């Protein structure tokens, strides 16, 4: 199955060219949402959504229109879109392309971020000419930028994120010497993936915290 993903704002013309230019599309998944306190925006987005649904129905293409509760919540949208892409891949469906031209600014940027992290071909559509611009994205291969030990530490921290782990406790969980873990932590701090915080009861100890962004980077099921 071939799926086209997209973000949608006021203009169906920003999404439909990608459906037309992709071969054998079986499904279109698009994300839309408007500022709830702006009736004009709500109306325009609803009209655009209806147009895309009508177009797909006529072309006999299945659709999944995702209404975003808050189209300005960057992180939540990024997590949602990345999860949907992963699910499609797990089910053996091909995500042919993701059109990030429509929708609010945070929606479009969140979609771009998900595409970079998942290596999905991405297009932009020119505002005036409706010409598609293919973005030369490079998938972030973490095996190349993080060592096996570093990834193990990050996974362990993610699994135990509700706990406040010290370096010693972390070393026990990953089954390595404290000095070894300390060396890897220094590298991870330099890369901006983790940070150390003061222990609330013992000033000699440090708590190892995963940066919020690292959770986005690792995803939920790698």
């Amino acid at each position, binding site marked *: 199955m071939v799926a086209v993903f997209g973000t949608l704002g006021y203009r169906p013309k920003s999404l439909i060219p990608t459906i037309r230019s992709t071969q054998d599309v079986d499904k279109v998944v698009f994300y839309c949402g408007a500022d709830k306190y702006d009736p004009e925006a709500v109306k325009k987005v609803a009209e655009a959504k209806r147009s895309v649904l009508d177009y797909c129905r006529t072309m006999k293409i299945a659709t999944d229109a995702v209404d975003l509760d808050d189209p300005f919540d*960057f*992180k939540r949208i990024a997590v949602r879109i990345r999860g949907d892409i992963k699910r499609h891949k797990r089910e053996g469906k091909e995500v042919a392309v993701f059109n990030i031209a429509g929708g609010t600014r945070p929606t479009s940027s969140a979609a771009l971020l998900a595409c970079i992290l998942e290596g999905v071909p991405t297009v932009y559509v020119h505002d005036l000419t409706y010409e598609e611009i293919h973005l030369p994205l490079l998938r972030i291969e973490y095996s190349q930028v993080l060592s096996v030990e570093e990834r193990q530490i990050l996974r362990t921290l993610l699994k135990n994120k509700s706990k406040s782990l010290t370096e010693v406790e972390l070393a026990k969980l990953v089954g390595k010497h404290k000095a070894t873990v300390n060396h890897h932590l220094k590298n991870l701090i330099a890369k*901006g993936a983790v940070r150390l915080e003061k222990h609330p009861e013992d000033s000699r100890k440090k708590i190892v915290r995963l940066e919020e962004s690292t959770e986005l980077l690792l995803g939920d099921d790698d």
Partner: protein
Amino acid sequence: MKVLLSTFGKDDFEKVVQAMRRLPYERLVLVGDAKAIESKSLAKIRGLEEMSGHEVADELVPEDGFMEIVDAISEILDRHSRDGRGKRNEIVMNISGGNKLLGDAALFAAFRSGTETYHCDEKLTKLPVLRGLTAKDRFTPSQVRFITQMDEPSVPFDRMVESISPGNRQPVERVMRELRKSGMIETKVESGKIIISLSDAGAEVARAIRMT
């Protein structure tokens, strides 16, 4: 020196002020199109900075053309990361200002250059860009050399051997296979000769390597 670089649109006074409050900095750089640079919002921000004895550096980027904007932002990031005395400035970037095209291009440039990046609106979201890790860091030195030697759209394999490792085809062949497998190059046979060309992703890597 800590540099805060923020994308900026003509009505984005509040967004930039939010970023200024939440992300500590010593020098402020605003990146936008001509309308943003001439806007009242920018004048107000200049006024705020003058109160602390500082100036705002404004950087003009093209209004159109995604990759042109990406290249312009990459160049700005590179320039502001150097302090002129051989040291590196610490740059953080906020991508919440300006139009969609500018924000997305800035996000793209952040991953290209390994710049610590935030989306600062009502909430502050740190983006998963690993600091200091550029596109170049994802390749071995031999692969980087191969890619940067691709100075024309199509290059015969024999010419690559001559320029990389004269008389020694085997290591160049190995790198060629690695890069073909990772989708960076494409090869075809023409008149019995192997011709190599960069894929779209490979061309982006080549551009990123040259800019960082």
